[in-house]
């Protein structure tokens, strides 16, 4: 009886069942790779760095234009982050650390994927009218100024469109390269309905 079972010819159904098992094996590998990447998502949030790479002044007709270059980097292995936008606010601090000029919003846009260990460059231009900084230091009786940036970086993640990830960095520099400090990581619900079998936005 047992012999008869093993001699049974392979039917179409048997072959298709083997096909399903092959699909199962391939999908198991795919899921393992996807899960390995997903598990790295949360640790990655504390491994994102922003750095002021340079702050170089250029003389213009009626003042000075500072070219600020920031480097945003994902220092962990997670793949799937993208930069959706950057909002940077600048305050210029006097050498006494008390007096402040609020410059306001600094233009600078960048969009695209944020791959691991592959920094994204954000460039901003800051126009300062001639004499502003000199007058500022004279009035406040201070020496030198520091540029204080607060950057809100909006990141796209797998949780879109239901959740948005915002990172807030702050950095203070006198022109030399400086690492920024991660002040806050906010994962906020947007209230957007997801799923229901419909197409992804």
């Amino acid at each position, binding site marked *: 009886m047992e012999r008869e079972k093993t001699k049974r010819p392979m039917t179409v159904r048997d072959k298709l*069942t083997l096909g399903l098992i092959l699909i199962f094996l391939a999908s198991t590998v795919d899921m393992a790779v*996807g*899960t390995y990447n997903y598990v790295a998502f949360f640790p990655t949030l504390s491994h994102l760095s922003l750095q002021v790479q340079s702050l170089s002044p250029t003389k213009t007709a009626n003042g000075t234009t500072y070219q600020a270059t920031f480097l945003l980097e994902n220092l962990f292995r997670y793949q799937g982050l993208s930069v959706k936008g950057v909002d940077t606010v600048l305050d210029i601090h006097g050498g006494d650390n008390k007096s402040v000029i609020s410059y306001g919003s600094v233009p600078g846009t960048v969009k695209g994927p944020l791959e691991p260990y592959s920094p994204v460059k954000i460039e901003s231009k800051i126009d300062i009218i001639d004499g502003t900084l000199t007058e500022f230091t004279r009035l406040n009786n201070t020496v030198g100024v520091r540029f204080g940036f607060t950057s809100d970086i909006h990141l796209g993640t797998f949780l879109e469109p239901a959740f948005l990830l915002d990172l807030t960095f702050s950095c203070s520099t006198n022109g030399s390269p400086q690492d920024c400090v991660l002040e806050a990581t906010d994962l906020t619900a947007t209230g957007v309905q997801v*799923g*229901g079998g419909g*197409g*992804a936005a």
Partner: protein
Amino acid sequence: MDSLSLFYPERRRKITVTLCWGAILASILASALFQRSVLSPLDTTFMFAVGVFATALIGDIEYGLLGYFAAFFLGLSIFFLAATLPILLGTQDFSLLDLWIAIIFRAVFPFPFIIALLGSIIGSAVGEKYL
């Protein structure tokens, strides 16, 4: 070519197919929800196709429906376990559970669930008639 009696008796085939089906559903959910937290129409199509294929192999409408619910439960369980791994690894707290329950239910119910069920019914009919 001789069969290796791998799928004999038929009950063994049904169990094998159901287990593979559940794992494939988990993989479809993982590849979609770990990237964009929603199921695209293509993902739903895959769920439908796997349902047709698996129940055609089972070739029994009663077991096909039972297998569908078993595979769906298995797929969701495997995926949920993978999604909550950060809690087990200690990188996230239990609020992640609420997040994933919300994402999974919004993504899977009702349309992908119904479409995959429809695929199972069609597959059972095809299997009974042609295989």
